[in-house]
Every structure is written in C-alpha cells, then in structure tokens.
C-alpha cells in the first residue's frame, strides 16, 4: 500500500486536527508516525463514515416513527391486527441489503489492511528483543560491531523508514506491547514467541504503554520511543554498546563504589564494572534515557534520588527495594549515575 501512503497521511490530518489543544498526541493512534498505524487510521476513518451513515439511517427512520407517536392523540387506539406491510417488506429487504453491503465493504477493507500489516514481515531490516517484566521493559539490540546483544531498559529507539521486527517475550505474566503512534498492540505471553513488525516514518519522541493488565502497577509500565534517522540510530546504538564511563571525580568515585559494591549490584548491571545483577534494568547508560521507572519519572537527579530512596512512594507495589543511604552517599550515587550517559 506504499503508493497511497501520502494520501493516507493527508487524510490523517483531519483527526489530527482534533487533537490540537486537547491531547498530547504522543500516545495516540490518531496521529500515525508509522505505516501500520497509518493503515489502521485509514480503516478507522472508513468505518467511521460507513457506521455514521448507517446510524443516521437508523435515527432518521426512528424519527419518522416518533413523529407518528407524538401526532397520535388518542389515548388507547383500537389495535390493528393484520396491517398491510408490503412497502415495509420491501424496505426490510433494502435495509438488509444495505447492511450486507456495508459489512462486506468493511470486512473486505479490514482484510486488505491485515494483508498490508502482514506484508511488513518481508521487509524486516532490524531485530529488537523486548522482554516484559513486572513492571518494566527490557530492550535488547544486536550490536553490529561485536555481534553481542546489548541491553537497555524502558526506551526503544527505531530507525525511520526501516521495518523493525520486535520479538516479544515475557519473564513473568501476560503483558502487551503497544506504541499507538507506530502500530497496534501485540500481547507478550509467557510460553509464546510473539513478534510485531513496525515501520515508523515520522521522527520524534512517542510513548508506549503496557496494554494488558499485569498486576498492581500495570498503570505505570510505560516506555519512551524515539524514532531517529538511520544515521542517528546507528550512532545511538554504538554509544549503548560501549561499557560504562569511568567515574570522573571523587564524588562519582564514591558513588561508583556504592553502586558496584553495595545493594545495587545484586540486581543491576553496569557493564564494565562488578555490578552484574540481572533482575533489574541495565544501568550502563541510564543518564542517556529520557525517563526512569518505566516511563513515569523524568531522568534527573532529584527523581533518581527519590526513586532509589523511596520507590514505594512513587510506584507502590514495585519490586525495586528501598535503598537507605546516608545523605552524602545518596548524593554520590546520584552524581555517579548522572554521568552514565
């Protein structure tokens, strides 16, 4: 459906205008930034027209009937036992035909769009592994230089114009991967190897969110999505593949010591150091991310310190333990983490 791409994107302007001033548009199927979402929006608009016309027919017919109701002044008319219904019989056939025609059109359009979504599989140019945990996202890319899988968390970067195959797996319960601006959702099911093909074409920041109830903090399991140019994407991936930056000053060195020799290292990885715990998100380049705690807090020093000291206050029920540190040590840890770009 590449040829009609621009037409579809043009038609998308109409509902986009509905968003102005009301909705942020970074997590919405009405503002497509990907081919899949654009196809789905086209289908939605077709359905809106067809269903709208059918609804107006129903309401119009009902209105005609109600005119007769309110014109009728007699309290209790004699019942009509065998009314002549020939016109109505023909109208019923017409009505049923209209419904059949409408449904056939919509089912056919739906099938065509489904084929378009399926066609993306032939154009896969990139593999991304996304593992859903309660309540965060582990995201891994293959580093073209070394061939190793490089992990990050809660932030997905995609090159524009290329189709990425997102391989979905769950470490615990059923989740659902959803970036509405780019494509529809796909459930992440333990025991099942699901995958979704996405082809983003608009640059910018978007937001994804878990879309299958997965426990107490399902509401706060989001992730950031950045659509880069292919060159920017390659540069970003190369940065992510590097090991952690060494601490640049004594305060950061103190923070480094606490992170790698203390409680953090039991659950988190900082590549190139002694911290090699797998349960929690990879922290090697945490400061390069836009948000922390699965998309709910902006990445800045205050939020880092608050999250480390008291995660239950920000995301009650989270598995991240509360790490109690002396104020000086807490500052040092935050200072060190801020340097991990």
């Amino acid at each position, binding site marked *: 459906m590449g040829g009609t791409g621009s037409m579809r994107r043009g038609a998308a302007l109409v509902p986009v205008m509905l968003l102005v001033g009301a909705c942020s548009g970074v997590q919405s199927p009405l503002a497509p930034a990907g081919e899949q979402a654009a196809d789905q929006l086209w289908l939605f608009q077709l359905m809106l027209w067809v269903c709208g016309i059918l609804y107006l027919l129903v309401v119009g017919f009902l209105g005609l009937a109600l005119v007769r109701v309110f014109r009728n002044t007699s309290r209790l008319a004699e019942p009509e036992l065998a009314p002549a219904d020939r016109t109505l019989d023909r109208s019923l056939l017409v009505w049923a035909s209209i419904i059949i025609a409408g449904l056939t059109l919509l089912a056919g359009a739906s099938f065509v769009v489904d084929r378009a979504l399926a066609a993306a599989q032939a154009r896969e140019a990139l593999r991304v592994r996304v*593992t859903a945990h309660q309540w965060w996202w582990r995201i891994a890319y293959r580093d073209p230089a070394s061939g190793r899988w490089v992990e990050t968390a809660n932030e997905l970067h995609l090159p524009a114009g290329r189709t990425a195959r997102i391989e979905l*797996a*769950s*470490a*615990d319960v059923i989740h659902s991967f959803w970036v509405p601006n780019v494509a529809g959702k796909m459930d992440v099911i*333990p*025991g099942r*190897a699901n995958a979704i093909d996405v082809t983003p074409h608009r640059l910018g920041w978007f937001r994804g969110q878990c879309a299958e109830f997965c426990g*107490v903090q399902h509401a706060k399991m989001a992730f950031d999505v950045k659509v880069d140019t292919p060159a920017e994407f390659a540069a970003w991936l190369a940065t992510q593949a590097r090991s952690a930056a060494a601490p640049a000053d004594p305060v950061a060195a103190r923070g480094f010591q606490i992170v790698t020799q*203390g*409680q953090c*290292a*039991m*659950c988190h990885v900082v590549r190139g150091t002694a911290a*090699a*715990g*797998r*349960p929690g998100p990879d922290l090697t380049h945490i400061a390069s991310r836009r948000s922390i705690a699965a998309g709910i807090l902006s990445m800045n020093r205050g939020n880092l310190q608050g999250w480390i000291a*008291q995660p*239950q*206050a920000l995301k*009650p*029920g989270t*598995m991240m*333990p*509360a*790490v*109690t540190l002396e104020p000086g040590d807490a500052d040092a840890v935050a200072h060190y983490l801020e340097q991990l770009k």
Partner: protein
Amino acid sequence: MQRYASFTFRAATSLVLPGVFALVACTKEGRTLGPEQPLTPPVGASDKRIGVFQNNLYQVSQGGRYFSWYGCAGCHGSTAPNSHDLAPDLAQHPRAFDAIYAMIADHPRVPVHYRDRIPTEQLWQITAYVRALPATKPELRRRQDLDEAGEPQGAQWAGPVR
C-alpha cells in the same frame, strides 16, 4: 401482597451479620503497599514486626520472588540437590525468626555478605518465606517455581519463558 419476612428476620440480617463479619476481618491476605519498611533487623524472637511478615501471604510471596532474584534458589530452590533443600531441615529443627534472619544475613560460604547487599525489608521477606517453606507441599512449591521460571536468578538469567 404477602409480607415477605418478619421484622426480627430483617433486623437480624441487616444489623447483626455485618457486625459479626467486621469483627472477624481477615488480615492474612491483606496487602498494604506503601513506604513503610523496617529499617532494622528483628530484635529477639518476639519482635512485634515479625507477625506482619510471617503471617502475611503477600510478604511471604514477595520473599519467594526475592529468593530467586538474590540467587538463593540457585542452591536452595525446589530443584536443588537434597543437601541444600531448606524445607526438610526446617521441618525437623524449627528456628525462631531472628535466628533465620541472622543465618541469611551472615550466610557462610557465599561470595558476598548478604547483610550489606540485601535491603533490610527484603531480608525480612526472605526470612518469612524460608520459614513458611515446611508448610508448603513440595509439588505446590514446584508448581509455583515453574510459574516463575522466567525470573532472573541473581547474576544468571535463563531468559524469558519460551
């Protein structure tokens, strides 16, 4: 129109029963989430905080998850060799809460000192989980562990559930 029930019947059901229920409210299944963690280890075998953890299914279950996350299941899990399985030993020699806590926090023959490396609240939860192990049927424990097969085990992670 028939009277459906006498006054006494209606009074009994509307007033007495809810009162009875309120009195026997069950706390074993309670789930309080929020920023209130113990900051110190248990003080003696009758520390008042012990009941909050030992008698609460949510805390015990959280202890079970951290049991995997901190790598305990690598040696003490349900598929561990017999000499390391905790349940039979605990069933034979039941120990107090603070004794188990101390055994975990000052665990011998492991590369790290858990007292410094595992937060206090999580040590409480793991202790509660370990002490609850003898009461869990082995096949149920195995079934629970199968559900959690995709969870990381300390520095190892076998990958998601495929």
